[in-house]
């Protein structure tokens, strides 16, 4: 470390106080659920991700139906087993007879899947991240292979930042489940620094947030 002296010590002390205060206020906001939703949506928009706040499963279905109009073949659904997921599969199958709605726990190939819908375990507001768990290659592939990916997450699964998830991650890893953080669409800046979407993973990324208790 550089020369230690009174100036540096004072600076560090101020820095520590500032951080403690910021962290404390952020945590309070986080616990109260005040700012995480707003922050999460802002961060996603900055990343070029379209976000929708859905107030009911009907609302969600309406939004999804408008997005899948162009989908000709299959929709793949993956992620945590929630009531929303069950209801969505049921309704999608009913509303879209010509589309095969398949679940990612099957062995169906993903090569023809144009759109996938995922139910992440958690989200991080400060980085605009959704976190999936997966225990098989098909679950991985269903998140990354299709051109379009939609994440659906309940508002109360949005935590503030990476510091808040240490225990969650350790628990998943202990159970043998890998975790994938996704923060925006796949991108590269390898050619003259120009950001291009979709070099490998989904080119278009939507996040639907369910406003209400997780089911």
């Amino acid at each position, binding site marked *: 470390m550089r*020369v230690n002296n009174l100036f540096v010590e004072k600076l*560090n002390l101020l820095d520590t106080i500032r951080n403690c205060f910021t962290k404390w206020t952020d945590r309070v906001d986080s616990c109260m659920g005040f700012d995480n939703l707003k922050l999460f949506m802002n961060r996603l928009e900055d990343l070029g991700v379209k976000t929708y706040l859905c107030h009911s499963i009907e609302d969600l279905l309406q939004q999804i139906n408008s997005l899948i109009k162009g989908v000709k073949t299959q929709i793949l659904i993956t992620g945590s087993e929630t009531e929303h997921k069950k209801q969505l599969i049921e309704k999608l199958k009913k509303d879209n007879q010509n589309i095969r709605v398949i679940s990612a726990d099957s062995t169906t190939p993903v090569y023809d899947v144009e759109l996938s819908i995922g139910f992440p375990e958690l989200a991080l507001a400060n980085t605009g991240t959704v976190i999936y768990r997966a225990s098989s*290659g098909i679950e*991985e592939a269903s998140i990354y292979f299709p051109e379009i990916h939609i994440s659906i997450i309940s508002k109360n699964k949005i935590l503030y930042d990476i510091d808040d998830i240490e225990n969650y*991650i350790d628990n998943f890893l202990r159970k043998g489940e890998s975790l994938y953080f996704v923060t925006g669409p*796949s991108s*590269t*800046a390898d*050619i003259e620094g120009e950001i291009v979407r979709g070099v490998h993973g989904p080119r278009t990324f939507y996040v639907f947030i369910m406003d209400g208790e997780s089911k």
Partner: protein
Amino acid sequence: MSLEKQVLEKLSLFKDNWPMLKNNLRIRERKDKIISEISLELLKEVRKIKEESIENLEQNIERLRRALEERGAELKIARDGLEASKMVLEVCKQYGVKLVVKSKSLTTEEIELNKVLESENIKVIETDLGERIVQLAGQKPSHILGPAFHMTRKEVAEIFTEYYGRPIPPDPQQIVLEVRREFRENYQKAGMAITGANFIIADNGAMVLVTNEGNDRLALAFAPIHVVIAGVEKILSSTRDVLKILKILPRNATGQRLSTYVSFHLPTMTSYPREARLNARKTIYILIDNGRMKARQDEEIKEILYCIRCASCLQVCPPYNMVGGHVFGYIYSGPMGIPWTMITHGLEKTYFSQLCNTCGLCREACPLDINLPYINSIVKERYGKRFGYPALNKILKRYESLITLASRTPKLSNKLLNSNSARKIIEKFIGIDSRRPLPRFLEKNLGEIFTELGSPEKGNVILFTDSLIYYMYPDWAVKAAKILSSLGYRVIIPSLKSCGMPLIQYGFMDDARRIAEYNVECLYNLIKQGYVVVSLEPTAQECLTNYYPKLLETEKARTVAENSYGYFEFLKKIGWRDVRRILKSIEGVHVTYHLPCHSRARDGSIVVKEFLEALGAKVYFKRLGCCGLAGTWGMKKNGHGYDISIEIGRYLVGEYEKLGGEFIVTECSICLQQFQHVSTLPIRHPLQLVQLASIE
């Protein structure tokens, strides 16, 4: 091809376009917006995590071995690159692998794995776009994060046009579309995925990958065999350690709060079903020593093992930004590439370290505060002692004797230095480029016109000036002393040696140590009598506070460092109100301020800017980095220093001239000379702009 010729070739190729610089500037602009979100406390915590992980490496390897065994994966430790390549080859043969998809792994570049696999007819496809471009071009990466940063879109399009056998337009969007299609086919066909790892967690065996493209995910989703190849230093103890580092890595690397894809990947995963049945994925971790364990015992360079590969040092390195990693690097490039090349490929491959001008910006940029300039000087020293120092550096090492000698006969010296033929001879025999203007020697040096000034009402000050001010700009020192005496200080200028930066810069560390010992002894004795040291030259201050304590590792050197201040930092400590009281206002003056690399106030403030603003000037400022001259480095002829130095200077001046100041102002005599040479704007030292109020 000699290093000098490589430099000149790259400079001519990159001229005015500066692709490396522009790519790095884009990243720096993004970083500037969010870097303040990282606290000093967190940086210290991460440094500690890395220190502990290297300290406990053996235990962590064993913990990892157990965790992987529990999950049915194998851990192999390879002594060197060859052994690691053989291990991979063996697995390929055992499972009949003919196609390998690789996701960005610098370590596989380090061991040149592709060559070994391809020699056995195993096809390797790089899946990171930048890596794929350089693979098809038959080149090495020029940047650890942007392997193809050195290429234009037109060059990239030509590569793919040749590869696909049909025209590909020079449009990144179109190129990406084409490549995406091809990659997807390869993922499905590949028999093995090879990835690197940003981190490996000893607690649970997870490997962590951080990417923006998502190529690692698709490679892993489909391949039945996964080989992880990483350096042993990538092992961290716990998930918590990784999460802490993730808070600083993307912010520093690409200016993102988090990279697009971060995976905590366990070896228990099953691969994507082929023929509709689930295969158990085979996972092998090959961790490579290749010099790392030895480096761990090497106290002088050990801290480079804390490097998290964020490339912050590459983003700011002035010579690297002008010539790129093919010249300024071997496999690892830029400032961090110097020690990493020594560790992994041996000292003989570090000749490019001569391109490091010891500006020190790399350390300032490093989130882990790795003392890269010092480590790089150590590498230069070891290279010099083993293979011989470059002849030019051996001559320039004697700069102080040369200046002292020339100053004894100033008229003759000035005449010689202004004569074209004499300059040509100097260029040939000493190595100073004849195009580089040199400052004039004066009839009297500082020692002849100044002894001491003022009375110690508020304290005693040693004014440390260094050679250039002593011999060529003594007026600045006199004015500096008058200002301090007006503020109530007694000022003395004792007989000291030059700070020794050129010796450090070229790796003559024994000589530098001798100078440091002499100066520290003199200054320490005066400090004990109640003096503080005030350096008028930023480089002198950098030596006192950064290099001397490291070179000597003594209590005396630390005491000197703690009692040393930059001149304007000291004025700030006295208080701008007092400074305003004794100096005339310069209201209405518009200046563009250049911050010298070594001008580092302890509180991080830009003190000269504050000084000028306190006196009423309008200051235009843009943090652009090193002026390019860097002492005698930019004086060295042609591609050894001068030509790179001029390119750096031209870029800076182009930017400064857009800002709107009437002058360029800087407190470093070296930067001042550089701008006088490359700029059309007048250049001033801050003290040239001010006058004592009492003179009125």
